[in-house]
């Protein structure tokens, strides 16, 4: 699948970057808004992978990031939350980016959708674990927080991809 060694190395770099950002992010507490709300900075990496390398590789990066994060932090339970959120977010972002016309959503919109999907995925795991549908009542708070973080993630994703696309121009056509 990864024939091009340059791409392969870059993918490894992306996974490492996502891992480092997630780790860093799990250390800084967010004083305002609700507990459980995170900056979602590692979503920048997944968004960039999605745009530059396509949907499948974004999924790979998302999975690897979640699994490796479990190995680094040692909390297995949070891996299921992270994995579900990341997979769901990547899928939704992939659909929003590749299946919907580019004129409708810019990267900011795609990233906000991803943030919302991430929250939804995580809460769904929480629902499965706790058998309590009331966990979804937390969604509005997370969505509001995700709007802000998603906005800035999309903004930074735009600047990063603008540069990266010049170096990896080939993957634009085949995706999803």
């Amino acid at each position, binding site marked *: 699948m990864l024939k091009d060694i340059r791409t392969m190395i870059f993918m490894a770099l992306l996974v490492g970057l996502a891992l480092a950002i997630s780790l860093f992010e799990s250390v800084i507490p967010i004083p305002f808004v609700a507990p459980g709300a995170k900056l979602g900075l590692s979503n920048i990496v997944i968004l960039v992978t999605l745009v530059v390398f396509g949907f499948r590789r974004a999924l790979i990066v998302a999975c690897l990031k979640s699994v490796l994060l479990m190995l680094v932090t040692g909390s297995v339970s949070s891996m299921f939350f992270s994995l579900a959120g990341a997979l769901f977010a990547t899928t939704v972002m992939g659909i929003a980016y590749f299946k919907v016309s580019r004129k409708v959503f810019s990267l900011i*919109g795609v990233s906000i959708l991803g943030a919302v999907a991430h929250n939804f995925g995580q809460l769904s795991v929480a629902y499965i674990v706790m058998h309590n549908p009331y966990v979804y009542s937390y969604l509005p708070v997370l969505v509001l927080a995700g709007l802000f973080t998603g906005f800035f993630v999309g903004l930074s994703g735009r600047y990063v991809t603008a540069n990266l696309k010049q170096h990896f121009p080939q993957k634009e056509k085949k995706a999803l």
Partner: protein
Amino acid sequence: MRFMTRGDKILVVLLVVASLFSFWLVKEINSKIDSRYISIQVNGEEYERLRFATSDEPEHYELETQFGRNLVEIGRDYVRVIEADCPDKLDVLQGAITRPGQVIVCLPNRMIIEIRGEAPDGPVIDDTVR
């Protein structure tokens, strides 16, 4: 490349409106659901289940059993005994109870009043998973 497309703006507005609305909805539902009830037990068995008063005007419930007589006052968020024929009147002196798990006991009359159910502000968290 424009800063934000029209789709983005619509998406943001939609999400804000939807989340604010469901925020309000959740609040509204939560305030209506009150799982608390008052359990009155006599001689170790549940004798009566009562709801809290729905208005500010307290309701009165007279408990008359073979062991004695107590007059219970039930407010919107409290229960207390205002009259009793027991000798020490400890249940009257105890005053009102308001939270789930609290009890009023009148030993001579073998009566226990207990608030049961979940607290409206949620259960106390004893563990979190990260």
